[in-house]
Structure formats: structure tokens, C-alpha cells
């Protein structure tokens, strides 16, 4: 279980201070797919990066994050790298943002994560990298490929393979399909759902797309201005939103689905 209590996050750039998270309380369970939705700028990406304690310089974070009973706020940078990021919680980003280096093969990049965070030998790590690519529907031999040789959807598969490399308990995905077309999106989301269920991990999907969230998540969390304003099982939230903001988001979507150029 990931338990978040009173999480506050401030960004500071020059004299400007922005409160991106303003007292977030939240519980994320392993057996579930949770979607985090909300307006643009409501703090969705901030919440995900805060959960990994991956923040830009000048940002300050306070509150409590507990993952499987462990206090994450007290971990040092070294401990986070040795036994938290990749191994307990890992992250998949929007296609263009995923940090594949153009100069190394996919195999090398996935293997490196395993060498650093799981202390595997190079040969073991390469073998596991091939198996991971296969698990996400890519040929094993693609360990020898470079990122630019892949389409957007294939790159996202490889990013998922890399995120799963160290057998994390939770997978966080921030807009993983935003840059993709709808058909590829359906493939990637189906893959994410299938793999996380098969491996028994918690999936947290951040998306601006309420329709997509409603199609794949068991639970929805609605953020507004850095706070959780609504939360619950998907069906209940759609049928009986617990907050006016959820209602507005739903109404806007329905208008769009019905709207016609004239």
C-alpha cells in the first residue's frame, strides 16, 4: 500500500513560489488500477514525481509518504536509488519524455538499470533485458536496436520493459499514451493492464483523459489545485460524483462527445 498524508509541494523559481500540492491525502492499493485525473496544472505530474522523490532543485516537499510500511520521506538519496526507485516504485513517462539515450542500444540501457539496482552481471542483465522486451511484445533480438529505430508505440513498450526490469511493486505511468494515436493507445493500455495484473502490481495511471481513465481504472482520484477533491470506485464516481468538479469534468466530456462543427 502507498499511503500519502498531508503532502505539500512548493516549486520556487526566482521569486515565484507555486504550491503544486496542497495537502494531499491518498491511499493507493497494490491490487488495483488507479487513475489520477484532473485539470491541466492541477498537480498530477507533481504528485507522481513527489511519490518517487524526484523533484527539481528549489522544490520543497513535506508531509508523509509510506510505501509498504516504509517511511519514504526519511530515505537518503542513496537509499532511494538502492532500494526504492525502480525496485519498489517505477515510472513510465509520456513517449517523448522517456529518457532513452539515443547513443545506446535498448539492451544496454535496460541492462544498466539491472546492473545498478539489482547488481546483476552484464551477461545476466542482457539475458533479462531480452526476456523483458519479449514480455512487452517486442522481439528478443531488439536488445541490439537503438531507440530511433522504433515507432512511438514500440518505444513505449520498451519503456515499460525498462520500468518492469527490477520487479517493482508499483508502476506509475504519467500520460503514457498522450503522444500516440488511439489504436496504439489501446494496445499500450491493454499491455499495461495485462502485465500489471499478471505480475500482481499496482498500476497508477495519470491521464488528462477521463474517458480513458474510466475505461481502464478500478478507482479514480480527482485532483484540483493540488488537492484530492473526489475519489472512489470508477463506477460510483461516474454515476454519482462526490464533488462538483468531477461533475464539471464529466459534463465537458459529454458535450465534446456530442459536439458537431457547424
Amino acid at each position, binding site marked *: 500500500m502507498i499511503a500519502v498524508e498531508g503532502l505539500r509541494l512548493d*516549486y520556487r*523559481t526566482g521569486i*515565484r513560489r*507555486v504550491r503544486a500540492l496542497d495537502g494531499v491525502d491518498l491511499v493507493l492499493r497494490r491490487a488495483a488500477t488507479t487513475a489520477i*485525473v*484532473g*485539470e*491541466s*496544472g*492541477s498537480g498530477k*505530474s507533481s504528485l507522481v514525481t513527489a511519490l518517487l522523490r524526484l523533484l527539481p532543485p528549489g522544490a520543497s516537499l513535506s508531509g508523509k509518504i509510506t510505501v509498504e510500511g516504509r517511511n519514504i520521506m526519511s530515505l537518503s538519496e542513496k537509499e532511494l536509488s538502492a532500494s526504492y526507485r525502480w525496485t519498489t516504485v517505477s515510472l513510465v513517462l*509520456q513517449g*517523448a*519524455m522517456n529518457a532513452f539515450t539515443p547513443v545506446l542500444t535498448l539492451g544496454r540501457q535496460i541492462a544498466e538499470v539491472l546492473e545498478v539496482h539489482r547488481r546483476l552481471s552484464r551477461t545476466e542483465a542482457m539475458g533479462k533485458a531480452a526476456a523483458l522486451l519479449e514480455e512487452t511484445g517486442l522481439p528478443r533480438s531488439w536488445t541490439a536496436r537503438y531507440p530511433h529505430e522504433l*515507432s*512511438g*508505440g514500440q518505444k513505449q513498450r520498451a519503456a515499460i520493459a525498462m520500468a518492469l526490469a527490477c520487479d517493482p511493486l508499483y508502476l506509475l505511468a504519467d*500520460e503514457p499514451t*498522450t*503522444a*500516440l*494515436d*488511439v*489504436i*496504439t*493507445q*489501446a*494496445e499500450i*493500455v*491493454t499491455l499495461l493492464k495485462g502485465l500489471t495484473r499478471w505480475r500482481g502490481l499496482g498500476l497508477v495511471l495519470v491521464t*488528462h*483523459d*477521463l*474517458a*480513458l481513465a*474510466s*475505461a*481502464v481504472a478500478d478507482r479514480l482520484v480527482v485532483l484540483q489545485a493540488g488537492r484530492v477533491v473526489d475519489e472512489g470506485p*470508477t*463506477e460510483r464516481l*461516474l454515476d454519482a460524483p462526490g464533488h462538483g468538479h468531477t461533475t*464539471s*469534468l*464529466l459534463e*465537458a*466530456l*459529454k*458535450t*465534446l*462527445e456530442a*459536439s*458537431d*462543427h457547424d
Partner: protein
Amino acid sequence: MTEIVRLDGVGHLFAGRGGIAPSRALHPLSFSLHESRSLALVGESGSGKTTLLRLILGLEEPTEGTVSLFGADPAAPGEEALRARRRCGYVPQDPFGGLPPTLSVLDAAAEPLLLPGSDIDGALARRQARELLRLCLLEESLWAARAGMSLSGGQRQRVCLARALVTDPDLLLADEPTSMQDSQTRRRLVELLQARSARGKTLLFVTHDLVLARAVTERAVVLLRGRIVEEGPTEDLLSRAIHPYTRALAAALPRLGQPLAAPPPALGPAPPGSCPFVDRCPHRMPACASAPPLRSVAEGRRAACWQEAPQKPTG
């Protein structure tokens, strides 16, 4: 009515480098867009939509055929092409790369008005920029922030839209301009685009979302692997598509509260020269080994499919 954009047999090959074979981004295709009209380019990533926009803007020169923009060749050197390009606003697909990193949000929005040769002074440019930022739903508290950093993904995308609209261009070319917006913000931006069209402005809108395309455009062209596979009124492509690929695109759109439909499985790679959908098409037959031509199938509609009796339009 005046033709704003016209493509005649435009094809494009990207040159190969260091042993890599040249790759074909577009097979020769033709279409036009008239003044005050709106057209969507719909298709999957890599289908050639962005290349088309870049050709129309003269950022790239086609390897075959001719492009005309406001009657000029947009890639030609000289005043005429420059004037044509200045009548366009462009929202690039990637809001992470599209913004000057050091400018404030306000200055980034005013910048297009202050290009060399413009006769607008800084104060007026900033007044117009403020107006556009408000219309693009960017709160005042963000205006002093650096546009290229310290903004959320959706906020950056809205700054890109404000930059494209600040000159009140006659033609807006927008590449997935609302792909990162929540439903409420998206609805307001759609209204902004609709209001522009109502004023007689022209729109070329790139998206893979047919429902969104219907909200902002009258007609749509569906592209797949660099070929036009279907063309017609956007409403018809959504509700009575002829081409199996267009139907698959409509079926894969997530709908509120409904499970995601499984996409058609890939049956194997499409051989060169075949129908571009042959690897995933549930109706494929031997004839599909060669690419079908784009034919007129009904008033105002074209499709490229060998199917003898394409699914009868219903309703």
C-alpha cells in the same frame, strides 16, 4: 472561393544516411483547402501528418509535386513566400521543444508580433498577448514564469496555441493542439477554434481523434502510412466510414464508462506496395497485395479500398 492550400501530387522521401535506405513519408497525394473552410488530417503517429504540415509551411520541400500556400510556393526564397507564411499560425506537436526556454510566458506569446519588419510596438504586442493568454486559459499568475520550464505539459501546449493565434492568422495549422488538455479546458479551446471558424478563418487540424475532429472541422482526410485512405465530411467518417482503417480509428476511441475495444491484431508486416492496412485488416483478400487507388465513392467522398461493396453507409 479562394484556394488557401493546394497540394498537387505531393510526395516526400526522406534521404537515407550512412547505409540506411531512404524512407517514404508520403506517397503522391492531392487535396486543397479553401478560404473559411476547415479540414482535419487524421491518422496514426508516423502516418505523415506532421510532414504534410511542414511541407505546407515550406519548412520542408517536397521531393515530388507542388505545394501552394496563398498562391505562392512556400519553400521558395523571397517576399511572396514570406508573406504567405506570415498569414499562417502554427502549433507544433511537441510543446516541450516548441517554446523559447528563456522567455517569460507573456514575452513568448508576444514574440510572433515582434518579428523583424513588424510595425507593432512592444506595449501593443503585450496587450494582445495578454488577451490571447486569457483566451487560452492561462492565469495571470503564470505570465511571469519561464515558458520553456516551470509549466505543466498542458500549460505549455496552451502557450504554443496562444503564440500561434496572437497574429490572428488567416490560416491556422495545428498539430494535436489539445492532446494534453483535460475535458473542460479542451472544450473551451474547441469553442475558441469554432469562434475563429465562424469569423471566416481557415483551419487545418491534425489529430487522431475523430470525435474531436468532428467538433472543429467540416471535412477530414484520413492518412495511413503516407497515403490518403479516405476523405469526406468529418461527421460521415465518424458515423459511416467506408475504409476499415477509419472504422478501426473510431472504434479505438475511449468512451466514458465503456471498456476499451481491443484493436485489430497485426497479422504480419505489410509488404511494400500493398494496401497500407493489409497487416491489420479483417477483410483482406488477394487483391490487397497492391495498393488500391483513391476513388470517388459518393458525393464528396473518396476511399482507397478493394472491397467490392464497401460497408453500406447506414442511416
